[in-house]
């Protein structure tokens, strides 16, 4: 999917640059507009969750109240009080007030209580899990981006060679295997059939007894446990970067400034890194949004398959137990993390491409 969207996304970025010449000066600031968009996304997603929970037929809050009344003989007040503490929603108020209450609660970090693990708040569960996912997904994203770009450049320089066709076939095949199926295949072949990977030992996010500290042994331990999920994310997403970088490099190679630099006698390695590489990599930044979303989405199934204790594994459990407060809390926090990651990518992009930073002036 990524290949086609590339030109689409680049063209939006180009237009944004062009359109930013109009309007008040602070609005034309690229970073300001991106920050505004990030806030808007978070706001829309939390609104969407609220109305999804409250307005769909079979409203889980109402179902919960009825269940408490019929099963345990609570009065309506008691049941709705319980529901209020679980969901941070007061069902007796009009929907609009409920909505405002809900927005105030989540902005204070109150996401309600978990249904499936009684007595634990959703915020606590997320706090204990999300860092592992950010660590594994972030590492995988960096690795696949860096190595994908390097291999893509190599493919472009050695166009039509044997190496190019081998790498093309590799990227087509790895691009086609759904990440969760690759995870099962790894356990199936390397874990069970061949017995090369001690996958049961690698479960969890850290070894038991390992303190969370700032040391080499700790880093080694968490990398050991994150190795399998990271490998799956890298293998399934690197093909996309390779193909994008290949086509981007090919068009950069045809630019006049490359020919001119060569004619001036600029050393070849300088041409490749500073003239071709730097300009070829820029359009790829617009693809990061899709890549981040893809890997984070993959964690929903890859983490439970490897029993890696990140947020994806917890969400998997919450989906199967229909733990709605936990479900909505995780969805919201994962979205906020992704939005922040995108914003960071935007900042980096504007550092690398001076044309954007100044808003086109």
């Amino acid at each position, binding site marked *: *999917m*990524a*290949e*086609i*969207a590339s030109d*689409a*996304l680049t*063209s*939006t970025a180009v237009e944004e640059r062009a359109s930013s010449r109009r309007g008040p000066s602070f609005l034309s600031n690229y970073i300001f507009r991106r920050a505004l*968009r990030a806030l808007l*996304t978070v706001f829309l*997603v939390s609104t969407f969750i609220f109305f*999804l*929970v409250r307005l769909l037929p*079979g409203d*889980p809050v109402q179902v919960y109240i009825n269940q408490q009344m019929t099963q345990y003989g609570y009065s309506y007040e008691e049941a709705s009080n319980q529901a209020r503490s679980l969901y941070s929603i007061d069902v007796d108020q009009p929907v609009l007030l409920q909505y405002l209450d809900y927005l105030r609660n989540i902005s204070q970090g109150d996401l309600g209580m978990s249904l499936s693990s009684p007595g634990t708040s959703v915020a606590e569960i997320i706090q204990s899990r999300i860092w592992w996912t950010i660590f594994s997904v972030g590492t995988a994203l960096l690795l696949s981006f860096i190595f994908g770009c390097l291999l893509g450049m190599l493919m*472009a*320089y*050695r*166009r*039509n060679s044997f190496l190019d066709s081998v790498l093309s*076939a590799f990227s*087509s095949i790895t*691009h*086609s*295997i*759904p990440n969760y*199926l690759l995870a*099962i*295949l790894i*356990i*199936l072949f390397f874990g*069970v*059939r061949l017995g090369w990977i001690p996958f049961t030992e690698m479960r969890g996010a850290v070894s038991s007894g390992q303190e969370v500290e700032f040391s080499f042994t700790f880093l080694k331990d968490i990398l050991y446990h994150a190795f399998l999920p990271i490998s799956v994310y890298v293998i399934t997403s690197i093909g996309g970067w390779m193909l994008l970088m290949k*086509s981007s490099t090919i068009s950069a*190679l*045809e630019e006049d400034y*490359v020919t001119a630099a*060569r004619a001036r006698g600029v050393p*070849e390695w300088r041409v490749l890194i500073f003239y071709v590489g730097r300009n070829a990599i820029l359009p790829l930044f617009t693809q990061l*949004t*899709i890549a981040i*979303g*893809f890997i*984070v*989405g*993959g964690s*929903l*199934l890859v983490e439970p398959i490897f029993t890696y204790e990140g947020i994806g594994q917890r*969400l*998997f459990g919450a*989906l*199967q137990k229909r733990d*709605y407060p936990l*479900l909505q809390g995780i*969805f919201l926090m994962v*979205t906020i993390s*992704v*939005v922040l990651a*995108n914003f960071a990518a935007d900042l980096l992009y504007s550092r690398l491409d001076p044309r954007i930073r100044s808003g086109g002036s």
Partner: protein
Amino acid sequence: MVQSALDPTSLPSAADPGTTSEAKRRGVIRTFVDHNKSGTIGFIMFFAILLLAFVGPFLMPGDNRGDYRNVYAPPSMDHFLGTDYQGKDIWFQIVHGGRSILLVAAGAAILSTGISIIFGALAALLGGRFDAFVLMFTDVVLTVPGIILLGVLAAFVRLNSPFLLVLILGLTGWPTLLLAVRAQVLSLKEREYIEAARMLDLGLPRILFREVLPNMMSYIVINFVLGMTGAIYGQVILYFLGLVSLAGNNWGLMIQQAYVQGAHFFKDSFLYIFAPIFVITVLQLSLVLISRALEDVFNPRLRES
């Protein structure tokens, strides 16, 4: 290493005047097979799967009775791929398990391609506020991790009919396609015949359906194929998560059942979980190869050999 950019063989071969007459003489299909080996393999794999899923069930009627004395049997004459944890034939499940996956994927791809064409093309043609709004909305949806959105939605909606499955997959699968369509229409918009139609004031529906869309059919087909891969990916996830309350035989359910039975931990049950994973991977690979081949054919500038 260096001369590749200036290498005459890397120039677009469409510019070669001999190509078209040669293509006529040798037939379109042969030219395609010669020039695009991976695309040919993709088409062959895809038609093999279509045959398996739509013709296979007629050649292999009957029902798949379990036999508890014959659990996880190795491949034999009776059971081509062995049996599962209930002693049911695995090959039978593979043959009968493709149709619903393919039909739902096609339905979802039609829906998501439709949404992206209509809104993407309108945004590009109308421009202004409408365009800004569509772009902003797409941006927001694109940022939210699609699979997690799909899972959360499926947990709230009871997915008990294939139509709901089509609806939920189609409604979450459009953002990348929309951006691609919009970019394509923006570039078409600059062409003379579209400008002429706009000046003649032929009306938006006519410009959209008679002038713009026929000129991007190839593009729509490619997007449809990509939409199908996305819908298959998402659909199997929903089955895997156990969020679809549909009975029957299909590859997604097979994987889920095999996984719940722990089939990936034992050597005897290897084929039970490997068989559906293999067909789904081959199906996805065939679609990816087809989309690349189509891109190659319709976009000769990208052609390399």
